């Protein structure tokens, strides 16, 4: 693959596959024209999402999709949504939040003021979950939460604080299993099809655009939460983001990854102690 996708930078694309050639050219075109860099996303997921967009746009090849993307911004916006919406839930993996209360909250209590970074926050379910957890631990006033995503459209949804009301039952089950100490319905007003979460939950939350593939560090953090975001990156990009997080964390700062993500196969493994093996909570050394 001549353009952009050399074997050095992007492992896993097949040199002998026409579809992969087309995918490579499309990603290069998206990068040059729109500035979004998906060239180091994991081919396994990316092939699926590009194909889904191709089918949904009623097109027969990725080359045709490239043509549409370059000449119709609306198609690009839809692709961007495909690539930035994460299927998630409030208090997804309740055990994670229980582990966070056990291992991280005691450390946070020692700070008069601390910063949390939710990297790749998508539509914000985990941000509201964290705000609720910190509130119940009496720490929300001391926290400033930075919730970032590459896509302004999903950030707008997150800012709105409105979530589908039909999901509240599942969220409530998670909340209880995560060790919630109040009634989950205390945190929102149900109206029509939407559950509107209370504004005070996000008084200390800053929603901002940040692209993990291309942007650098922007602050120093006591906690970085990035769960099930890097699984869509290839190992090179994962390495870049791990460097970014390491540079952004204070000494003894906490890094939270998804349950099936690991430091095991990264160059940063030696730079962290394990706080919780199952729920992938790590503490930066020195």
């Amino acid at each position, binding site marked *: 693959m001549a353009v952009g996708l050399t074997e050095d930078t992007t492992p896993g694309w097949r040199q002998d596959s026409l579809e992969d050639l087309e995918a490579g050219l499309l990603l290069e075109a998206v990068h040059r024209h729109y500035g979004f860099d998906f060239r180091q996303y994991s081919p396994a997921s990316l092939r699926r999402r590009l194909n889904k967009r191709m089918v949904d746009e009623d097109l027969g090849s990725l080359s045709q999709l490239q043509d549409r993307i370059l000449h119709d911004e609306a198609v690009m916006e839809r692709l961007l949504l495909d690539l930035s919406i994460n299927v998630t839930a409030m208090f997804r993996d309740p055990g994670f939040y229980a582990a966070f209360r056990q291992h991280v909250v005691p450390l946070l209590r020692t700070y008069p003021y601390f910063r949390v970074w939710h990297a790749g926050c998508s539509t914000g379910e985990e941000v509201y979950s964290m705000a609720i957890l910190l509130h119940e631990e009496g720490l929300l006033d001391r926290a400033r939460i930075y919730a970032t995503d590459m896509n302004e459209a999903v950030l707008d949804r997150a800012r709105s604080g409105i979530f589908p009301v039909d999901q509240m039952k599942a969220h409530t089950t998670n909340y209880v299993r995560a060790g919630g100490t109040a009634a989950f319905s205390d945190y929102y007003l149900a109206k029509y099809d939407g559950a509107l979460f209370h504004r005070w939950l996000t008084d200390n939350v800053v929603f901002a655009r940040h692209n993990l593939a291309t942007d650098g560090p922007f602050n120093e953090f006591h906690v970085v939460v990035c769960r099930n975001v890097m*699984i869509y990156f290839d190992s090179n990009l994962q390495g870049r983001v791990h460097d970014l997080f390491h540079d952004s964390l204070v000494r003894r700062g906490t890094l939270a990854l998804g349950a099936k*993500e690991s430091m095991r196969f990264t160059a940063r493994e030696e730079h962290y102690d394990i706080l919780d093996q199952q729920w992938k909570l790590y503490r930066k050394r020195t």
Partner: protein
Amino acid sequence: MTRDVDTRDENREIVCIGASWGGLDALRVLLAGIPASFPMPICIVQHRGDENDVELLIEFLSKVTELSVEEPEDKQPLRPGSVYVAPAGYHLMVNSGYTALSVEDRVRYSRPSIDVLFESAASSHGRHVTAIVLTGANDDGARGAQAVHRAGGTVLVQDPDTSERSEMPRATIATGVADMVLPLEQLADELVRRSAEART
């Protein structure tokens, strides 16, 4: 057939297995027939609920096979003679010799989805994929088996008559891409025979 010596990851042989209703018994029989020296990694999608009962599944399968059985993490290198079972609530994919997990939407009601595993293997490992469709009461795997077939890989299907539920094997057979339809007891032998052939 002469083959160039090619050590690129994506050219490693790989076995992908999909199972649903009745899958535990079928997997028990299949894996018990595969020796520890088996030279390919084996990836498995077994449908089940979103709850974290994977440890029980891993424990169960570990007892019936000499192969090492584990629930993989993301971007884990695939090793010959190891069995990788899709974690609950995640799609398991493979890409050039590594796992790739995803929490994308369910595909036709399933996560993990057999189609997703098969299609990823077809895209990445091409003709080096052997896909096996076992017992089940839906049609997951049929689309993925077609992708494996188009990429030059091999599709084996459990004989519906030996399947606890025959819908899933029948759905794949109906696509016309099954290279062999075999009774459950013969699938392991066929895999071992093919693995020996692939090395010559």
